[in-house]
């Protein structure tokens, strides 16, 4: 059984998560080339968040997720608040069902995460369509989601190394409860 994380370690890892998110946003913003990029980039920060929630939800509380994605919405000129809303819903859903995810073998975990990513992509699209605003072509979304699914195992490996987390045993209790 894993030892409980100390508050100090939790704070440190939250800070680490925040820094990684900032660096991610930062790299998307650097003016390397300003031509219209139909470049499809995977949603790395989102995937890292999902990985962490299954491994150790204490490191990514909802308010931290909210702040990070609100910041990225503002800075990356995306529809304000939309991404934040969708991702908070998805991560909260995952947080409530993480016990199931912890029992899964990696392959089925991957499959379920893929479904979640797809849901998030289409939820965003549906909200944009429902409010009659400009939306991305479906192919772009599918390839974006596909790329995110593809890099999931890579990011799991990286997160395991950087945050030193592992899928905990089911019986481990968390200091602040599953909803913080």
């Amino acid at each position, binding site marked *: 059984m894993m030892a409980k994380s100390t508050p100090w370690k939790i704070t440190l890892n939250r800070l680490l998560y925040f820094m990684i998110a900032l660096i991610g946003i*930062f*790299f998307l*913003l*650097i*003016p*390397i*080339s*300003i*031509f*219209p*990029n*139909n470049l499809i980039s995977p949603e790395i920060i989102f995937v890292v968040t999902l990985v962490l929630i299954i491994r150790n939800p204490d490191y990514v*509380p*909802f*308010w931290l997720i*909210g702040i990070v994605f*609100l910041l990225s919405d*503002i*800075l*990356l*000129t*995306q*529809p*304000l*608040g*939309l991404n*934040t*809303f969708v991702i*908070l*819903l998805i991560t*909260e859903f995952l947080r409530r069902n993480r016990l199931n995810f912890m029992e899964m073998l990696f392959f089925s975990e991957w499959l379920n995460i893929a479904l979640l990513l797809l849901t998030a992509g289409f939820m965003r699209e549906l*909200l944009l369509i429902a*409010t009659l*605003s*400009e939306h*991305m072509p479906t192919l*772009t979304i599918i390839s974006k989601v596909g790329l995110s699914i593809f890099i999931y195992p890579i990011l799991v490996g990286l997160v395991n190394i950087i945050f030193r987390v592992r899928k905990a045993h089911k019986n481990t209790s968390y200091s*602040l*409860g599953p*909803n*913080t």
Partner: protein
Amino acid sequence: MSNRDDVALNFTRSIARIGLFVFLIISFSLFLLWRIDNPRAENIRMKVIDQIVPNMDWAMAPVTKVTKMFQNIQNYERLYSQNQELRNELQSMRSWREAALQLEQENAHLLDLNKVKLNPKYNFISGKVLIDSGSNFRQSAIINLGNNDGIVEGWATMDGLGLVGRITGVGSETSRVLFLTDTSSNIPVLIKPSNQRAILSGDNSLQPALLFIENTQQIQPGDRVVTSGDGGVFPSDLLIGQVSLNNSNQFQTQLAANLYNLSFLRVIRHSPTAPIKQPNRLIGPILPKVSNDG
């Protein structure tokens, strides 16, 4: 676990639940605000960017430098072929220069004959591109000029050669430039030798489409595209690029501005001329109002 601990845990949980709910409501209402009152939402965005981006400059500069260096190294590999190309281009440029000189002399001569009053030169302010916030939604960049430098929304921005876009949001120290390539950019243009009017409409590609051309028979790939000045948003006769045909035989524009490598931009200061709305304003000063009673 003791009873007291349980109560404390429940308390934190319910606080967390409320917090999450608040966060969801805030983000959703932000989205609704963005959709309903877009200018105000973009204003909020500009304010936040205005606070953050100028402070990020120190971190951005070295990273940008390094990536530029790598791109330069890639360029060296193509040096030989580029050199050949440049030689060929130089050759043709020489003949153009000759033609231009002759035209200039002719022009000076004609102007002398005509005593034409030239437009006062548009003057400009130069700014540096801070960040490229282009996403699939918006093709735009943030520059380091704002209200404090007298930037006004709607002004045209160019790189050294051609039109790049227009100012769409102004903070106190930064402002946003919406590129011609953005889907919401539609500009009245003039296609030069034949003086055909058209609309240059961005479509997220490097070659914006030319729509509503009056007579497609009269234009050919290679014709020059300039702003027409219709509608008074842009000054007229700013170079945009050249006409080209795409695979499906539709007219597009090859932009003269180099969007691949944009680091400085010129914002054209331009105050639109007062539109003529009433017929009696065409000639002469404004007449004093005469009452109709007597």
